[in-house]
């Protein structure tokens, strides 16, 4: 299978790479959105590895750059960023519909990509599935107990604290520089969105990493954050505490890609899979 490069969109302002396996016409298309400011190949080439593995499994894919990211330009017109994201993904869905006959789509996004995928998935009926990697998260009571209680009960920490205090100062460790961040949306709004998505038959896969331990630190937190909608059979969750936010280790990345592929195969089996 050969990938094709496209300049597309209502102002021909978008750049993307489509992979369409032979015989995949009419299948569910997978669209991968930018992670933060990284261009369409993804952090450490994650999106290339993901889309090619999904192509091999029979799924048409498109990895592309949203307006003003990567190699894509601005479309002109006075759209808000949210409207722009929806319009860009609409352009992407139209391209994959034209190339592969796809009528329904699964969106994949990491961090701000998850936020953008969420925005589109909440409102566009053509989206039948979504993979949110380190999407919205909220520090729940459970998070705080898990985070602070071990520290409060750790004698070594108290010893260090008291020694530093006696010494008259703390360390000068520089604050870590966050590379990606997701602006918070109201939690009730996000819960309502998830409820609406699964209510209309969407399948969701929420994967959170140890790289966002400032906001999320246990598999139980899916339920603590979003409530009973997480028990819906259309929702699958995975907490990978050992990994970082952008899957820098190739083994972690391979397991993530396998996980997404397995979730897709169970929820959106390609034609070859149905015949098997």
């Amino acid at each position: 299978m050969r990938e094709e490069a496209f300049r597309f969109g209502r102002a021909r302002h978008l750049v993307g790479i489509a992979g369409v396996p032979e015989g995949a016409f009419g299948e569910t298309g997978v669209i991968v959105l930018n992670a933060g400011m990284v261009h369409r190949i993804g952090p450490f080439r994650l999106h290339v590895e993901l889309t090619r593995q999904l192509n091999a499994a029979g799924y048409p894919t498109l990895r592309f750059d949203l307006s003003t990211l990567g190699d894509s330009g601005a479309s002109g017109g006075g759209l808000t960023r949210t409207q722009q994201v929806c319009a860009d993904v609409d352009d992407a869905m139209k391209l994959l519909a034209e190339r592969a006959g796809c009528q329904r789509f699964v969106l994949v996004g990491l961090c701000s990509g998850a936020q953008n995928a969420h925005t589109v998935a909440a409102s566009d009926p053509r989206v039948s599935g979504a993979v949110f990697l380190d999407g919205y998260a909220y520090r729940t009571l459970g998070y705080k107990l898990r985070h602070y209680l071990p520290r409060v009960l750790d004698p070594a920490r108290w010893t260090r604290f008291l020694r530093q205090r006696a010494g008259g100062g703390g360390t000068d460790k520089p604050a870590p520089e966050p590379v990606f961040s997701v602006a918070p949306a109201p939690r009730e709004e996000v819960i309502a969105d998830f409820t609406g998505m699964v209510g209309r038959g969407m399948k969701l896969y929420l994967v959170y990493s140890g790289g966002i331990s400032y906001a999320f630190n246990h598999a139980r937190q899916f339920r603590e954050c979003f409530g009973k909608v997480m028990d819906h059979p259309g929702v699958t969750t995975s907490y990978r505490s050992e990994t970082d936010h952008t899957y820098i280790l190739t083994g972690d990345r391979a397991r993530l890609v396998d996980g997404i592929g397995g979730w897709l195969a169970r929820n959106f089996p390609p034609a070859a899979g149905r015949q098997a």
Partner: protein
Amino acid sequence: MRTDPELPFFFGADSGLFGMYHAPASTPRRAVLMCPPLGQELIRTHRLYRQLAQALAAQGIAVLRFDYHGTGDSAGDSAEVDWQRCIGDAVTAAGELRSRAGVDRIVAFGARLGGSIALGAADRARFAEVIAWDPVIDGDDYVSALDTMQAALREDADRFNQPRTHADVAEQWLGFDIGDSLRKQIAALKVTPANVPTLVLDSMPAGAAPRWEPLVSTRGRVAAIAPPTPWNDLRRLEAAILSHPLIQAVTGRMAEDA
């Protein structure tokens, strides 16, 4: 037929190389081939490469950006990246640029290992000049730096909740699988001067710059760029590298030739 100022396409023998052609508004008389670095440096410099390509195109210069086999959007896995193939891909890309732009004279630009590849490909690709930004001229030092950062990554508390095992981080450099042959090829790398004029743009941190003189002793020069570029800072591994002075230096050099 509609002509886009920036055209993405695949090229090469198996249509496996990804390229982005920047066409100037008028018929070009000069062209620049932009050779990317490898690994995470390719991702960190993507935006800067695009900005530079656009600035050069605005000067009436045809520009081709591209990805080597196993990198970026090109075909192949990261573990398949091969030094000689990278040089061959640069030669292929130069041919593609000549064909698209209708221009024979090509200047090559490259950052870090991209600069080294441009120098290594200069003869076969018939580059008229090479502009190399902090090129790697001693591969052994480069390998040591990557190994040091990869070892530090294993227990980077800003990234992992618990230190990872040695096996977890083995045979990789900062996010990319690394084949044993590429490791050996880069470790053995000793870049020699190209037989063409060479401009070295030096933004290495103080004390880290190698001796550039051998590269430019016959036909070339070195120009300093400030501030220093943090190529080897693990804390900024995922921060884009942007440099207005670099764009000014390259566009300024090309303007001298206009």
